[in-house]
């Protein structure tokens, strides 16, 4: 632009015009710089707003859990309670047999995880690596299962478990999830990606097939296994629906049910006690999350999609 402008009229442009040019140019540059700074500020403000939208509810939960009941009924709300009421946590814990809930939660989530590992590893390996008659049909069953929400068939499963006398037992809460179509789907893809050469080399060594699977193939898909394990444990630790539907008494009930029950027990909405109980449920998972955030996000997102 500048070069063309200069030759307009066929005469060299005077010093004054030159000055004007640089000043316009520097003005433009200042403007551009300002624009960039504004954009950066906007970007930062946006990100901060985003953090607020997601962090504020949790901060509010902590704040409420330390208030007295009258303090929860102030509007506009106050963020910091006058003197923190730690007793709320003990009160929440004492609304029910929380030790039992806790043990049940651990037993059920761990039990499911172990059985899932035992069933999905061989199944996904067979689907990925062997050609056998009916494999398409059997994999069809896996895909259909993947598409069936567990919440759609709870009624017949309830009747089934009731016929097996498995209601209100740990086993009844574990068995329906002893395998996972999602896990098989994920792991099968991981097994398929392992190159054939590696397998052939191992086979040439005359190693037994099960040894090859355990010693060579499974370690190769370890990231996907860890992904799935984290996913499964958190999902079943948090689960409310299945234990709610499959239990009629406290024997096998889990933590989420205990927390939700606080609300039913009290006549008035005691939000301070409720939020204290809620924090008991949330805190361990949040702490683990912020300690190993990268791995967990990777587990849920990065390994899961490919």
């Amino acid at each position, binding site marked *: 632009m500048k070069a063309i402008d200069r030759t307009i009229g066929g005469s060299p442009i005077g010093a004054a015009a030159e000055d004007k040019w640089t000043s316009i140019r520097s003005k433009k540059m200042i403007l551009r710089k300002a624009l960039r700074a504004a954009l950066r500020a906007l970007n930062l403000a946006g990100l901060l707003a985003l953090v607020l939208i997601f*962090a504020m509810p*949790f901060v*509010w*939960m902590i704040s409420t859990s330390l208030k007295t009941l009258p303090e929860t009924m102030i509007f506009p709300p106050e963020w910091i309670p006058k003197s923190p009421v730690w007793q709320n946590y003990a009160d929440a814990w004492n609304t029910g047999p929380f030790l039992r809930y806790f043990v049940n939660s651990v037993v059920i989530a761990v039990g499911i995880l172990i059985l899932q590992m035992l069933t999905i590893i061989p199944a996904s390996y*067979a689907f990925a690596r*062997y050609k056998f008659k009916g494999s398409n049909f059997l994999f069809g069953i896996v895909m259909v299962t993947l598409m069936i929400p567990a919440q759609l*068939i709870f009624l017949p499963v309830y009747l089934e478990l009731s016929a097996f006398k498995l209601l209100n037992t740990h086993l009844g809460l574990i068995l329906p999830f002893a395998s996972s179509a999602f896990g098989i789907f994920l792991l099968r893809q991981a097994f398929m990606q392992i190159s054939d050469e590696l397998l052939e080399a191992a086979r040439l060594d005359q190693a037994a*097939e099960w040894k090859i699977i355990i010693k060579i193939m499974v370690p190769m898909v370890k990231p996907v296994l860890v992904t799935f394990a984290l996913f499964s444990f958190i999902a079943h630790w948090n689960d409310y629906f299945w234990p709610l539907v499959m239990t009629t008494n406290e024997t096998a009930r889990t933590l989420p049910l205990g927390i939700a029950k606080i609300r039913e027990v009290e006549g008035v909405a005691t939000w301070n006690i409720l939020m204290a109980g809620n924090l008991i449920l949330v805190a361990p998972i949040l702490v683990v999350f912020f300690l190993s955030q990268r791995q967990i996000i990777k587990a849920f997102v990065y390994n899961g999609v490919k």
Partner: protein
Amino acid sequence: MTVWEKLRPYGMVAPAIIIFALFFIYPIFYMIYLSMFDWNFVSPTKTYVGFQNFKDLLAEPDFRQVLSNTTVYTVLTVTLTTGIALLLALWMNRKSFFHGFVQGAIFSPHIISLVSISLLWSWLMDPEYGLLNWVIGLAGFGKLEWLSHPSTSLISLVMVAVWKGLGYNALVFIAGLQSIPADIYEAASLDRSKPWTTFTKLILPMLSPTIFFLVIINMIGSFQVFETIAIMTQGGPVNSTNTLVYYIYEYGFRFFKIGYASAAGVILLVIVGILTMIYFKLLSNRVHYR
């Protein structure tokens, strides 16, 4: 090939297939069977009624509202979650400590129990002392009833679902964006392709497997929504947030109309089945696989 080698794959898939057959496949047929009976769970006799349960269901205004509630909830949740998540991903697709921190923050609701989220949001949405009314008050709006009014209850639940799902969806999109080879971007910028063209002609097609994955996952999740409804609204007020799974739950476990609840379950099964098939059909034509 020895007999053992031929049988081995069957042995390996058997445990998983047995579990699926027992707890997923068989129950579906059992549910279809039950849907044709009148049974209260306690009585020893089931009375065959044919398709009467379905006729009753479809004639009942409450159930029609349940169907429309579920559809509205699913469509809103899936489009809002996927759409906003894509925008967030395009915005936040940068590798820095701060971006990592923000990503962690928006992801956190995904790993928290729905019980906690439901209780927390019930409190945030409390019409009298809730934080949300204070926040919109700062922006100059009057108090809303949120969950307590039929006109806002369903959208309030959608809000909670979007809040919970956004981080996960955004991070899956970011993973998708990062798997697009850098030289493709470079080629686009060398061609002086406009940002919008780059987005529609390049990024969007490359992301279509991710979009496919997310829409399916979100749809399945939304259709089986239960926890937030059971804890936050119990289907109310005046049936405005009653959805299919909660409806089946109420009819099965509170009114003990097993046949009736099963019929509703079969209808949900048909809807999910049709949607899934349409989706796969559409996608097999359109998805741009790498």
